[in-house]
């Protein structure tokens, strides 16, 4: 009996649980109706869970997206860095080429201007620096064996002015004694002022313009040009600029420091003047100044 009643109860519960949703559907399936309390309760139970999980997933997905974005950005960053380095290198090469181009153009113009001089281009391959870090000597890639051989005492010039003269020639190379060398002496005059003298190297600093005492208004920046009287350097080349308004009396002579026309640390290409002796004007053979060869 009890088993029968249990079965009946179960059947009844099944029936109720099957029929109840049908009524609910009938009621809730209507097109125009307001939200029922049952719906409110069901939504009230399900919405918080959905909201919570949605928030967690959204944050998780956002974090993953952010991470992958950052990874992409990092890779992109590396790529851009490499690109920038490459561009910097290219720009540097471009600047170097531009500078070289300008130097070579200036040299070509100089060669055209100096029609009387036989100029042979040479490249500086080494610089010797003194203990005070100034360039004391440079080596060129021209020697005794070339098509136009270098020889001792050949003037070395650039479009800016005189560099010095060839000191030694060995094989394919030659060493240049700069105008700053203590053994260097050059007959020069102040352009437009008529004051002549010697440009003498000091070895450990700026060369000096040494001239016999005379009344002359010399000032800083005045151009010193070669006279050709020393039979070494052709006439009319810029040797340097007076570096000071102040002069110093040494015995019967006056000395003024001179800024060389050429910046030796930047020197790249030069000209060897191979016919300097021929270019020296005849009136310059004798001079009151002794020049050490």
């Amino acid at each position, binding site marked *: 009996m009890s088993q029968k009643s249990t079965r009946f109860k179960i059947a009844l519960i099944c029936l109720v*649980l099957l029929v109840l949703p049908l009524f609910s559907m009938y009621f*809730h*399936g209507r097109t125009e109706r307001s939200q029922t309390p049952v719906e409110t309760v069901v939504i009230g139970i399900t919405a918080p869970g*959905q909201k*919570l999980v949605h928030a967690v997933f959204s944050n998780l997905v956002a974090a993953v997206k952010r991470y992958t974005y950052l990874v992409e950005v990092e890779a992109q960053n590396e790529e851009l860095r490499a690109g920038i380095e490459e561009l910097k290198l290219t720009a540097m090469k471009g600047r170097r080429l531009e500078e070289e181009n300008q130097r070579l153009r200036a040299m070509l113009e100089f060669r055209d201007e100096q029609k009387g001089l036989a100029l042979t281009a040479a490249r500086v391959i080494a610089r010797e620096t003194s203990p005070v870090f100034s360039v004391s000597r440079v080596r060129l890639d021209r020697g005794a064996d070339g098509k136009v051989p270098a020889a001792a005492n050949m003037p070395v010039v650039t479009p800016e002015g005189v560099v010095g003269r060839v000191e030694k020639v060995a094989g394919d190379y030659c060493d240049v004694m700069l105008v700053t060398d203590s053994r260097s002496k050059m007959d020069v005059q102040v352009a437009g002022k008529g004051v002549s003298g010697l440009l003498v190297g000091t070895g450990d600093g700026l060369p000096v313009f040494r001239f016999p005492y005379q009344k002359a208004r010399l000032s800083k920046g005045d151009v010193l040009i070669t006279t050709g009287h020393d039979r070494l350097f052709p006439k009319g080349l810029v040797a340097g600029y007076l570096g000071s308004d102040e002069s110093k009396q040494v015995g019967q002579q006056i000395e003024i420091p001179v800024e060389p026309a050429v910046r030796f640390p930047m020197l790249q290409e030069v000209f060897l003047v191979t016919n300097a002796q021929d270019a020296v004007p005849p009136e310059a053979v004798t001079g009151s100044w002794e020049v050490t060869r």
Partner: protein
Amino acid sequence: MLLYVLVGYVLLCIESPLLSSFHVRMYAPDPALAVVVYAAAAMDFLPGIFTAFILGLLKDGFSGGVPLGLHVETFVAVFLAGAALSRRLDYRGAVLMALTVVVASLASSFLFFILSAIFDRDFEEFDLIFRLAIPQALVSAPMGPIVGGILSFIDNRVLQVEREGLFR
């Protein structure tokens, strides 16, 4: 019973945002249906049928737009069929569970169609139910063994705790 309802609730909570994230809302697996199928084989009749009823209500709440009771009716019917089947065949193994979920999903789609046709006056996408019935059954199939594994694990843990106490 509460644990099954809780697992079903959690799975329903996870389902919606998960599917949105992976853009597969159309072919959504039905984890609650898998819970009902497993409950039919693993639980006593009365707690099981109430579990199916509550899960149906929750599913209606999560679905939104369907008349309240649609999933309740479907889940109760699936539970009754599952309970009848489990008397002859223990389908709690992985393969049988997956197959049973496929059949249950197809049956629930059919019931969904019938009940929507009768009770939902706004519903017009009847062809969609038939188009999605088989894909949905197939994507729901793996949920059977997964949900079965979870519930089986929970059952075993509960039994263990009951036998040995919480702080053994």
